[in-house]
Structures are given as structure tokens and as C-alpha cells.
């Protein structure tokens, strides 16, 4: 129930925050995607358990 409310709320926020899908929005999304894909995802190397 709680999750459904959160989902519904997030969906309404997303729809409200997303105006028409014009070129500008597309650009913003592309920028966000580029930032995300360029975030470091490599792993560290842990010391031995021993």
C-alpha cells in the first residue's frame, strides 16, 4: 500500500515535471544520461582477508 502511494506520487511528480517533450527536455535528459554513464563505476581492490 505504502509503496503504491509512493509510486503514484512519483508518477504524478514525473508527469507534472515533464512538460511537452520538446527539444529542450530531450537535451536535458541526454545531459543527465551522459553524466550518469560517465560516473566512475570501477571497483577498488580490497586488501587480503588472510
Amino acid at each position, binding site marked *: 500500500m505504502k509503496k503504491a502511494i509512493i509510486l503514484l506520487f512519483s508518477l504524478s511528480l514525473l508527469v507534472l515535471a515533464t512538460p511537452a517533450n520538446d527539444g529542450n527536455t530531450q537535451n536535458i535528459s541526454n545531459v543527465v544520461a551522459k553524466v550518469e554513464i560517465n560516473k566512475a563505476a570501477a571497483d*577498488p581492490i580490497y586488501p587480503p582477508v588472510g
Partner: protein
Amino acid sequence: MEFGPLIKFYRTQKGITQKELAAGICSIPHLSKIENNSKDANGETISLLLERLEVSFDEMEEKEELICSLLKDFGEKINFYLREDIEIIFNRLKEIEHVIPFSAHMYSYELYKYRYLLFKGLLSEADAQRDILYKQKKNFSQHEMYLFRYYNAVSLILKGHHKKADEIFDELFVETNNETTNGELLYHWALVKSALDQSGHAIHFGRLALQIFMNQHNFYRILHTLMLLGISYTNSKVYEEAHVCFNHLIRNAELLKEERMLPQIYHNMGYLQDKMDNVKEALTYYEKSLSLQPLKNQNYLVTLYGIGEINYKLSDMEKAKEYFLQVKELSKETGIKKQGLLADFYLIHIDSPEKAMKYLEVKVIPYLEGSKEHKEDMIRYYRLLSEHYNQQEKYLEAVNYLSKII
């Protein structure tokens, strides 16, 4: 030393009957009772029986002391991570293994054997040893029981079952009234906390362990703990402290000529620079690390992948492709899936971002969710997919991934 079973052992080994052994020393029923430990024999009778078996009483007494001191040494060498010494002591214990069951240190020896197998990373042998010990656990002293549970936690770390290991450490810590001064346990617990994405706790236990190791001048474990602290500070975004740890490590590893650790330290310095968005510095450290890694193992794969990712960020797609292809191949050879899947994702993304998103959703995310990856890494991929669906006006799917972030 339990002389009764010891006499029985040597008598059987030499193929002598009870009648032959007892002749002129004691009666056969008396010998039988001695062998079964149901009657205490006097020292003189024991000496005579051992003499007939060509086993020296004094030598046996000395062996008892030797076993005790070797086991003590063994525990210390493990704590100090002295690989060569551990091998030497273990081999010496092996030489007198046949008399250990008759000593008072039988369970301690079997427990240390379990620890030795874990130390060597021989997991299936360690599991077999754990099963043997499990059957004997009701005979353990309080300290032996503590060691058994602690080593089980170490085994769980090696198998990647960090949550279960964490529960054991928590219990052990509470039971010892938080007064544990065992640096090794604190170090292992910090490792677990770091793997569970609880960097704050990892730093707390890591610092406690470091203090103990410094008091003991336990150099290897100081280096290991500093490395763990550096990683935990990086993950907590306390970059300055992480930098201090790694710089300290580079200096000391070079001083101690600890060449095995240098590539790992350089890699982690690269990892820190990567997180700080110092892309070029990250690349330099990753390359330095790779050049010092002789074996194409898991560490090599992790560094190789890091270099591929940095080249991708720098938009050097040719080089990125070259490294990701190498990652793919090595991932197949070693059977380590994560980096292989991610390299594939980038390779597809270079040609078709659309197809890459599908691949991310169908292949990469289910694998990462199954292997309980760090939350921050997962968030990154959920965001990517959410943005992707948002662009396509598929809001339900977009919200689905957004809700995973919450």
C-alpha cells in the same frame, strides 16, 4: 599428555599384543585399563611401557610443550600475516601430527588447521575441516568455541556472505562485552562493513584495528588496514583522508619493499582520483598499477576495466574499445562476470545507446541485483534506465526504476 591412548597407538602401530607389552611390567587387564584411560597408572609403569615401545617418556613430555609453543607461534604469525613463517610452523606441526591427538591441544590444533586452510584460500578443504570440527563442538572450551565461530565468519567473508559474517561478529563483540582487543577481528569486521556498504562503520572498526596493529608494530596488517580505510574514506567521500591513507601507503610499501601491494595501492589511488573526477590522474594511476601486475587475475581485470572506463569518459573510443575487448576476453577466461558484462554494455553503447539500455536492463541489472552490488552503483544504473524511459515517454517504466532508488 594422554599416555594411555598414546601407548595403545604405538603398540598397535608396532603390531605388539597387550600380553607381549605387559609381560613383566603389569597385568593385561591393568594395561587394558591404562590404554582406555579408565585407570591412572603411575609414572614408573608408563615409563617402562613406553621404553618397551621404544618411545621416550621425556621426549613425549617435550613434544607436549613443543605443540603448545608451536600453536601459540602459529596464532601469532597468522595475526601478523607472515606467510613464509606460517608455512614453516605448519610443516613442523605436521611432522608431529600423530602425537597431537594425545595432547591437551587436539582441538586447538584442528582449529588452527581450519584457520590455515582459510588463510591459504583452500575453501573446500576448509569446509571439510569445519564439518569435522562441528561434530566435536560440544567438547570445545569457551575459547575454542569463540575461535570456531570467528573462523566460520572468516570463511563466510571469503565466500562473499558478508551479512551472515556480520551477524557473527556482532554476537562475538557483544559476548566479549565490547572489550575485544583483537585487531584481527576488528580488521575483518571492518572488511565486512565495507563490503556491506556501511563505510562509516568500516572506518570506525578500521581505526580501532589500526591502533592495535600500530601498538603491536604489525606492519603488514597496518598496510592492509590503511588500504581498507582509504577505500572506506573514498566511498564516504572523505577524499582528503583517503588521499592521506594512500600516500602513506605508497611511501611505506616502497620503504618495506612490499612490491605485492604496490599495484593494488596504485589502483586504489586511481579509484580515488576517479571518484574525485580527476580523470587524467586516475588513468595515470590505473596504468601504473596495470604495468606492475604480472598475473592476469581478478585484480588485473578490475584495473583493466577501470582504464577502459576512463578512456570512454575521455571520449577516446578506440582505446576504450581496445580495453573493453580485453576485459571481455579475460572475464571469460577467469569466469568473473561483472566486468565482462559492463564492458559489453559500453561496447554496445559505443555503437547503439538504445541497444545498450536493453542490454543493461536484461543482462547487467539482474546480474548486479543478484550479486548484491553496492547501492550507489545500482542507483547509477537505475537512474540511467529511468532517464532512458523518460525520454521515450514510458513513464511507468521510468517511475519503476525511480522507485528502486527510493
